[in-house]
């Protein structure tokens, strides 16, 4: 374990911390933005509560466009926007912007699917009871979709861990970046292996946490 010097330990720890920050912050932003977008998509859908193709189509198009742009390109393409938001275009903070954007589009679609899974009958029952649209959204649609929403967030978190490895391209740091710089570019396979193992354990932990939460909130 001669390669695991104190410096290397610090580097790993710092990289892990950066990954945590990037993934956590991007996911938080993506949930906050993705859920309203998903609700808007679902509600304005043809069989939604307020069908409106003039909102649904363009919004769906934007979401798809963001989803179909490869992350590495998206990251570079929105540098001006990143600078506007984060004040800089390099570093961990700056990496959060493209990560959040990609994850928002990703989550908006996954959340929309989760909302689609909600039994139409329960919504109809609420309509028959005289519920307002807002009541249906807040008291039926979102609560009934919650297990799906949590499952989708778990998927997004895991994907974000993968995306964050590319953040090294704009100096975002993180475990993936460490693996590339030391493991690949400096020929230190031990570092690469450590990074990979850390990532596997991290992702596994996220997935287990997500699954546990889904089980807790669903009563099927």
């Amino acid at each position, binding site marked *: 374990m001669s390669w695991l010097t104190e410096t290397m330990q610090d580097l790993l720890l710092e990289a892990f911390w950066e990954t945590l920050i990037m993934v956590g912050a991007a996911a938080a932003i993506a949930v906050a933005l993705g859920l309203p977008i998903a609700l808007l998509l679902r509600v304005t859908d043809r069989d939604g509560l307020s069908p409106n193709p003039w909102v649904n189509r363009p919004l769906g198009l934007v979401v798809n466009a963001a989803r179909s742009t490869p992350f590495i390109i998206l990251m570079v393409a929105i540098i001006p926007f990143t600078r506007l938001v984060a004040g800089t275009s390099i570093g961990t903070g700056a990496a959060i912007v493209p990560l959040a954007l990609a994850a928002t589009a990703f989550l908006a679609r996954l959340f929309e699917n989760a909302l689609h899974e909600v039994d139409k*009958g*329960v919504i*109809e029952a609420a309509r028959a009871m*005289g*519920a307002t649209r807002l009541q249906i959204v807040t008291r039926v649609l979102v*609560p*009934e979709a919650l*297990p799906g929403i949590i499952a989708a967030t778990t998927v997004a978190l895991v994907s974000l861990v993968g995306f964050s490895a590319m953040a090294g391209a704009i100096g975002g740091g993180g475990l993936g970046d460490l693996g590339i710089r030391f493991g690949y570019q400096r020929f230190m396979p031990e570092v690469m292996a450590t990074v990979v193992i850390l990532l596997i354990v991290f992702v596994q932990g996220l997935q287990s946490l997500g699954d546990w939460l889904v089980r807790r909130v*669903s009563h099927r």
Partner: protein
Amino acid sequence: MTAIALTGLRKRFAAGGTLALDDVSLEVRAGEIFGIVGRSGAGKSTLIRTVNLLERPDAGGISVLGQDMLALDDAGLRAARRGIGMVFQHFNLHTRRTVAENVAFPLEIAGLSRAGRRARVDEILPLVGLEGKRDAYPAQLSGGQKQRVGIARALASRPGLLLCDEATSALDPETTQEILSLVRGLRDRLDLTVLLITHEMGVVKAICDRVAVMEAGRIIEQGRVFDVFTRPEQPTTRHFVSEVVGHSVPATTIARLPEPGPGEVRQIAQVIFAGPNSTRAVVSEASRDFGIDINIVSGRIDEIAGEPFGVMALAAYGPREKIAASFDWMRGLGLTVTEIET
């Protein structure tokens, strides 16, 4: 008093498609259990959904508990819907809410306080026999229990009208009977009017006071359940009635019947006896006056809402025109004679 008055309802889902509702008019009296029976696609589901405007008709009038539903604005419609309970085939319960929370949902929507909701839930759960299940989740309940939750929820905000959309179609026969007697009991205790739709004539026979038969978007026959059962006029109605009354004679029984003699035919028929002539010696009179032989294949007494009626299957032997004349004579006496092809 009229609870629901539907007049001239029309509804077409797709331009150029068939009419789901084709000039449907219907009156449901306060306090009765009114059944609408029809095959799937007959338009009965669309019809019941127009009552609380889950489905808007293209034309026609809807008056519910004295209120013109089509004249209401959004807020007025929501208020009116709170006075109309609805029960669904697939229960439509919130999976993440307990029984008590499901039942409280309409009260929550209406803005009732937590204490008020609790009190009402405590009041209503015993009515449907679920007081022990208040904290269970729907997934932990049987189909019959789920529908009890659906009924409790529908009645939580004290509606005067209950709509049942195929409420027992997902249940086994025994549970169906339980739920039906529950509905009838609740009607009696809570002064409810019930409109239900079903594809099972057994449901109609078990609890309805009056029935309408729907086919291809129209009401083809309606009346008191006893009258419709004992004197069905339309072929579709006769078919529905036969499901419950059972007019089919087993093929093995027919095989054992004597073959007609030379110059004779054999005609098997189902005869329903009801009303003033049901005690007349119809069979021997027909045999004597028309010069035919009549073999009674089967017979039994059935009952609808406490009124008895007889169902008999007979095999008549003789010249074709004499048999036909004897059947017409029976029809003239008010019996329902349905010829069965063999």
